[in-house]
């Protein structure tokens, strides 16, 4: 019986990256093809991992463990449970779509794909690692490539946006690193191995005062990645100015590393501190939902709307994290997936529109459904998904989060539901201004995505949204045992 080898998910794109590096810069079509293969193969492997994962048995599977730096107890330890196998699937789908929509990039192609592949490999590494050191290591690998990609291929305010985004993320990462090191040192185990630390802390929790400040460092540090209010300001401008593929990857997947880290390293390892701090985080989460939603209402730039919307939706993730029950945590993991796919889809479509029309300003756009029926329809579906219309994945996820939060945070939940209304308003407004009404004369000659190849990335993401929206059990049974184990350990 074959079982997936997780290292291949890292090594094969690395081989692809090496090939791209060695090719001369003018072999653009070959570079594009190799890049597509380099993300397609790990996507297929991720699907295989997802299918092969035995969710009845639960726990970490397909584990590989090689000692790396013995004196510090660092090991190259890969493995998946229900949660990160789902994240692999998310990354696989989004990275494939992101590479496919990158055909719109016309200059400095080799550098573009090199940086894009490094970003993808780093993110795969972070989600695969069961070693705290390697999680951090891989999660930081993406920082500089993202900076360069925004600064080189972004839109007008790209240099400002790139610097702001990178500095915020580096600041968050530094805080988190100090927290993780303090965690490592206070266990006294001399190991960064997540599994061993979990076992140790389940039986011998850290003293409460240590837990309290270490937890805070980790949650604020990774919270910056997750656009925790009020540390979210880097995201809208960063996503707006970034090239499409980076907006997709970052809003879709990279910021989910923050939520993933908070689940794995903060809440699960320091449950007592979680009970102290998470109610405060829940209140901030409402600020995310309502405040960022209201800001999104005032925006006229399509990508800014999506950027604020993305910050707003992170509020549901944070709220779900504060619930400490299975239904809430299931909702969080579900939402990480659903929002990732939805955000990637929305940014991909916006990128397509902006490439065609040369503007993202809703006051100038209008009537695009007439000339781009396919793109317009997809955008409307993405917007419905985002607003929580049943039938799409986000609906299931948000309902789960709200149900989970209801018992403990009744008033906050009411506000969160109000946030869904705000989402519906700004997205419907965007649809009305951008895609309905009379078609501006400037845009008369624009073309839709015509070929199957051009439509494929959007169809892929949309199909996933609808599939898991209509069949929630595909995900819920898969992650059930893993989330139940985490909730068990934090009770």
């Amino acid at each position: 019986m074959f079982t997936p080898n997780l290292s291949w998910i890292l090594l094969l794109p690395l081989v692809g990256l090496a090939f791209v590096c060695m090719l001369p810069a003018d072999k653009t079509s070959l570079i594009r093809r190799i890049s597509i293969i380099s993300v397609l193969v790990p996507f297929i492997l991720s699907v295989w991992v997802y299918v092969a994962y035995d969710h009845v048995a639960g726990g970490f599977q397909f584990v590989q463990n090689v000692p790396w730096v013995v004196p510090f107890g660092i090991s190259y330890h890969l493995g998946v449970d229900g949660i990160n196998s789902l994240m692999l699937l998310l990354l696989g789908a989004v990275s494939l779509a992101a590479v496919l929509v990158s055909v719109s990039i016309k200059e400095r192609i080799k550098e573009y794909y090199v940086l894009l592949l490094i970003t993808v490999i780093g993110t795969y590494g972070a989600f695969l690692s069961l070693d705290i050191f390697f999680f951090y290591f891989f999660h930081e690998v993406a920082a500089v490539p993202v900076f360069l990609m925004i600064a080189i291929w972004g839109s007008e305010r790209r240099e400002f946006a790139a610097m702001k985004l990178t500095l915020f993320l580096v600041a968050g990462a530094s805080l988190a690193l100090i927290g993780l090191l303090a965690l490592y040192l206070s266990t006294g185990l001399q190991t960064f191995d997540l599994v061993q630390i979990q076992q140790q802390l389940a039986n011998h929790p850290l003293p409460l005062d240590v837990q309290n400040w270490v937890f805070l460092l980790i949650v604020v540090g990774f919270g910056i990645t997750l656009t925790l209010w009020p540390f979210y300001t880097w995201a809208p401008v960063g996503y707006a100015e970034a090239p499409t593929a980076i907006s997709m990857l970052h809003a879709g997947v990279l910021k989910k590393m923050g939520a993933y880290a908070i689940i794995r390293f903060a809440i699960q390892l320091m449950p007592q501190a979680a009970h102290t701090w998470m109610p405060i985080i829940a209140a901030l989460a409402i600020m995310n939902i309502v405040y960022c939603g209201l800001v999104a209402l005032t925006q006229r730039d399509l990508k800014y709307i999506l950027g604020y919307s993305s910050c707003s939706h992170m509020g549901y993730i944070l709220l779900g994290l504060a619930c400490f029950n299975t239904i809430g945590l299931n909702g969080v993991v579900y939402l990480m997936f659903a929002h990732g796919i939805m955000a990637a889809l929305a940014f991909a479509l916006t990128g397509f529109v902006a490439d065609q029309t040369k503007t993202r300003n809703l006051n100038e756009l209008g009537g695009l459904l007439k000339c781009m029926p396919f793109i317009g329809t997809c955008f409307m579906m993405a917007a419905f998904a985002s607003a929580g219309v049943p039938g799409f994945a986000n609906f299931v996820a948000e309902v789960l989060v709200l149900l989970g939060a209801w018992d403990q945070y009744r008033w906050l939940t009411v506000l969160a539901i109000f946030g869904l209304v705000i989402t519906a308003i700004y997205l419907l407004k965007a649809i009305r201004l951008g895609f309905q009404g009379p078609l501006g004369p400037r845009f008369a000659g624009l073309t839709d995505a015509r070929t199957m190849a051009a439509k494929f990335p959007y169809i892929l993401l949309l199909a996933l949204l609808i599939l898991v929206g209509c069949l929630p059990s595909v995900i819920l049974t898969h992650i059930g045992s893993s989330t139940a184990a985490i909730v068990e350990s934090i009770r």
Partner: protein
Amino acid sequence: MFPVINWSLVSLEVLMSIILVLLVAVDIALPKNTDKDWIGIFSFIGLAGLIIFWLTQGSLNGVTFSGMYVMDSLAWFFKGFFLVAMVFVFAMTQEFFKSLGERRNEFYLLLWLALIGMCLIASSADFLLMFIAIEILTISLYVMTAYLKSDRLSIEAGMKYLILGALASGFFLYGISFLYGAAHSTHFDVIQSYCQTHGITPITVFATVLIFAAVGFKIAAVPFHMWVADVYQGAPTPVTALLSVGSKAAGFIVLIRLFFGVFGAWHVEWSLVLAVLSAITMTYGNLVAMCQTNIKRLLGYSSISHAGYLLMGAAAGTALGAAGINFYLLGYLFTNLAAFLVIIVFSIAAKSDEIADYAGLSQRSSLLACAMLLALVSLAGMPPLAGFFGKFTLLMAVIKSGYVWLALIAGVNIVISTYYYLVVAKRIFVEKPHSTTPVAISAGMQLLLVLAIVGIVVVGTFQGPFLDAAMAAVNGMYLAHP
């Protein structure tokens, strides 16, 4: 009676001195108008031989010259470090003087002298030998700094370095004299047992502060950093590279030997001082570096901030802290040398060290741009590069010793430094080039650039063996503080 000398311990320095004397002879014997760079060629052969010889010396351990000279794991580790650094510096010199032509040979000889000085610093077990070794290094650096005698900046740099360096030497001697008054010896082992049996007194506080001031000058710690920017900018670039890597590492050996070994018993008193100095040094260096327009000055201030990071290891005062310093320096070696290789190649082609002129370098030479990017990102401390794991180790050491506030300040500094390193990276990769002519790189420089890149990535990714070496250097150290 004449003391028994174990020559095998000293053999590396003896060989270096022989090579130096032979090179002087060759220099005299050579016809004046020869084009061939014989001294350079012989120097490379000598360095290659010495590196092979150094590899065989790993197990040596002992004290000789009446306890003045020690060969232990720490000395061995750093001698290898200096030899590797010197390979780069010699190659830079060769490249640098291609455009200047004359007086190249004397420069090589001074480099050899500096190498001998650094190796002797690594092996000192007595304050007098340490003083002499530091002077051998520093005096050759004075000369080399002011070597471009028609360049005003170079003269100014040499002058500044000389005056402040002489002051530091004075402090060092003055401190030694007080210490001698207290402990009645200049031997490290005697002073160490004095420290273990006596508490710190006003006299010894004064002595150690003076000695620290001299070390602070070498490693460019605030408030002994005044010389750095001007000297880094004015000195010939190979000398800047040597200052930033070799001279700084030599300073940290002294710090490790003294503050982990000799004064180890007084570390409780010193720890907080070192921690505060570390915080001030890194913050000052990074803040001032933000507004630099000259790449050599930028790296000068960045080198001050890195002295601050490295001082975290000294503040921690544990074996882990010392190992962190060693590892960090190892990463810093490849990182900084990569940056200076790029600077040399670029300054020869473009006749400029201004950051503004680096605009669009990625379109003129992808190798240079790539090397500079990796160097900058490694200096900023991002994985998977060497600088990251060094910072990681040092942060771990200070948190373990209870200085969480210092770790947080370091975290803030990492953000500040990321900003100005990325500003340079942005110029190189984002802005339009002033001219599109490709930058020519000689084959030797290409090889070294690739070596430095490989070093940055390998040290940062396969950290295990390098960390083992850094830890072994501390654990087997002579007079290690328990």
